[in-house]
């Protein structure tokens, strides 16, 4: 109620207020591609944000490929050098090194493709 009264009081303008309003009044500015320019900037920003993470992950994978392969190779070699009674029939059950690394890469790419599709 009080706010309504205040709003009504605000709307009651004297001649000076009306004069100031007319003095401050200005012609509307035509859009002339202004909004389109901003929307374009926003779309570019969104696209960059969307692409940054997958690109970073791919680059990371490329950089980490060799050390990862070395680690997997080391673990693989360690398992093979263990006594036969500790890890029975290991040789037959372990997949090849290339298969492990390729599988991991495919898994990563698939996960990121799915998250990008969701976006």
């Amino acid at each position, binding site marked *: 109620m009080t706010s309504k009264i205040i709003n009504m009081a605000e709307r009651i303008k004297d001649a000076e207020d009306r004069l100031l309003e007319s003095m401050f009044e200005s012609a509307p500015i035509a859009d002339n591609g202004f909004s389109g320019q901003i*929307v374009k900037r926003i779309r570019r920003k969104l696209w960059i944000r969307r692409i940054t993470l997958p690109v970073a992950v791919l680059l990371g994978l490329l950089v980490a490929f060799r050390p990862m392969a070395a680690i997997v190779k080391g673990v693989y070699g360690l398992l093979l050098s263990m006594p036969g009674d500790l890890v029975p029939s290991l040789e037959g059950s372990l997949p090849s090194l290339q298969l492990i690394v390729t599988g991991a890469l495919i898994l990563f790419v698939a996960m990121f493709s799915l998250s990008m599709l969701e976006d």
Partner: protein
Amino acid sequence: MISGEDNELVARVVASQDTRAFGELIRRHQSHVRNFLRKLSGDMSAADDLAQDCFMRAWDKLHTYSGSGSFIGWLLKIAYTTFLQSKRKSKRYAEILEQVGHVSAAESRTHTVQADETGDLDKFLAVLSEEERAIMVMSYACGLSHREISEATAMPVGSVKSVIFRGKEKIRTSFDIKDHQHG
């Protein structure tokens, strides 16, 4: 052209990052925001750059718009903050230039603006302080209520009223308003 109230468009933008809906919001309000910044800065191209920054910020902060006040009031709040921050930045820049013995670029730009101020409104605005200018423009050019101005400037409603009163007083004493009134 997309139909719907401002609040509906805001909801669409927040829910699904709909750039077309945001484009429609810009189309609706760009004139007010640009006019506001042009009157504040007195420099058309700088004002348009600031307006672009303002809408970019609005995009980032849209989720904070509660929908309780008018959307243009919320936009003008961002526009005013953007203007003050750019002013602060250019002031700092001018100080650095002065320290290294250069003529301040910002200072020379201000002189150009003052020289260009020939219109009645520009003369009126020139006698006002920055704060008074912003509040008077929000009130008389953009038609915001005192409450909306108070939200936009983070000032109590009472202070907004007294700034408007002071601004009117300054204009009244500096110019013979009655002359304008009677042509």
